[in-house]
């Protein structure tokens, strides 16, 4: 397994956000994590990436315990994140935002500036603009490109369709097959259930900090997902 969590817990002060999450992601797999607001999806990604620290063995990457590593060390191991809300650096241009993604861990791999510009050609035209001067969809392209620049073996995408027009979401999801073709595993956190089911090899549904359903899109029916998502029968 590329990534595993064992009984992963997380808290914000007195508020417990995750209750013993057991999760596994295989090499090259696309896993979708769905769930309503407050289900703990973003907290799970923050725990995996080291933004929230845990006991070492709660998160394993390529067989090594990484739960207590800080975010910069986790990223250097090959786990890249597209954060919720894009979080582009306002004082950096589009190209600088991309370059900083590969500054510490770029290395040999298919993803470099030219490959990102081929994936999202509009970014080549806007490369000198401040990152935050772009439309929401273009900013999302920069955020994805920035994460790809490190040539990770695991890409975590947090709510990449949030606040975007359907046509823009379609364009962004259209890039996913090319990203997966480079061999990396992808974890997509998504509230758009249909979109998640259309691209994922496997789906995990979360509610109130727990995994309530797991399976392949073919195994799961609408009623099961509805019950796991909202905690009630359809």
């Amino acid at each position, binding site marked *: 397994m590329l990534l595993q969590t064992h009984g992963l817990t997380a808290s914000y002060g007195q508020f417990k956000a995750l209750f013993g999450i057991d999760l596994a992601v295989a090499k090259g797999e696309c896993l979708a994590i769905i769930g309503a607001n407050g289900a703990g999806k973003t907290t799970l990604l923050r725990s995996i*990436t*080291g*933004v929230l620290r845990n006991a070492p063995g709660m998160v394993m990457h390529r067989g090594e315990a990484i739960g207590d590593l*800080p*975010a*910069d060390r986790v*990223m*250097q191991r090959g786990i*890249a*994140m597209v*954060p919720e809300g894009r*979080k582009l*650096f*306002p*004082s*950096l241009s589009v190209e*600088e935002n991309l*370059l*900083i*993604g590969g*500054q*510490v*861990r770029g290395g040999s791999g298919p993803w470099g500036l030219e490959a990102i510009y081929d994936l999202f050609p509009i970014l080549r035209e806007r490369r000198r603009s401040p990152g935050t001067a772009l439309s929401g969809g273009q900013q999302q392209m920069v955020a994805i490109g*920035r994460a790809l620049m*490190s040539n990770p073996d695991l890409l975590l995408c947090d709510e990449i369709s949030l606040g975007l027009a359907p046509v823009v979401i379609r364009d962004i999801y259209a890039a996913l097959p090319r990203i997966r073709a480079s061999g990396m595993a992808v974890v997509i956190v998504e509230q758009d259930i249909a979109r998640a089911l259309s691209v994922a090899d496997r789906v995990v549904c979360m509610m109130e900090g727990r995994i309530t359903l797991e399976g392949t899109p073919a195994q799961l029916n609408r009623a099961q997902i509805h019950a796991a998502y909202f905690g009630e029968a359809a």
Partner: protein
Amino acid sequence: MIWVDTVVQGVLLGGLYALFAAGLSLVFGIMRLVNLAHGDMIVAAAFLILLLVQGLGLNPFLAALLAAPAMFAFGWLLQRFILNRVLGKDILPPLLVTFGLSVALQNGMLEAFSADSRRIPIGPLESASVSLGGITVGVMPLLTFGSAVAVIVVLNQIFYRTALGRAFRATSDDPVTASLMGINPRGIFAMATGLAMVVVTIAALYLGMRSNFDPSIGPARLIYAFEAVIIGGLGSLWGTLAGGIIIGVAQTLGAAINPEWQILAGHIAFLVVLVIRPRGLFPRALD
């Protein structure tokens, strides 16, 4: 002609104030840390240069070249092991720590060097001057101003042309997201403080060569540095140079009217700018 001469002298004096302020501006711009010990660090660096000059018989400029890496190491260690521990959303802990550091530095220097005034000897260069279109200007003020411009240019080049500068700006924007890019914010902050101490060394060189100094004068240098940074706009390096020049010109104009008004005129100029442009002349768009 006397007024032109006064303004030129003020501009050149502003170069010294800009040097005092550049390190402060750099640190504030990257980590929003106000270093209350900045003036004392300038004085400490001046003593270090003086020790090298007197102990090894070095030229002051060469002594500063040797002092700079030592000051870089001091800044790096200070940030890595002390200031990083107190950086956070609350601005009070770092203020208290740097205030304590200021007191400790002053007393340490008093113990080591006594309260006597010192000066870094530079020989004939001290009184050398050149004539520029009917105005006579000192070589030292010219060198100081040239160094200030060079420092600002180099810092800007580092900020906008290098990978380190990119990491500085990204970490300043959002340290958590920067860490998701593999950048260690604490390491970046340590580099920034180290770099600021190199600038402090350059400021100390000119402070020590141009005027007498003793362990107690740090806080006054800090006030000039603060005023230059705030006039220019927090975090703007070119703004810091402009701020230094405004204070310098105000002081020389005040002194031309009445010698007692020199210091007061600089402070009044600061207050006037603050009333008209509370965020300074060239504020960063994001602050």
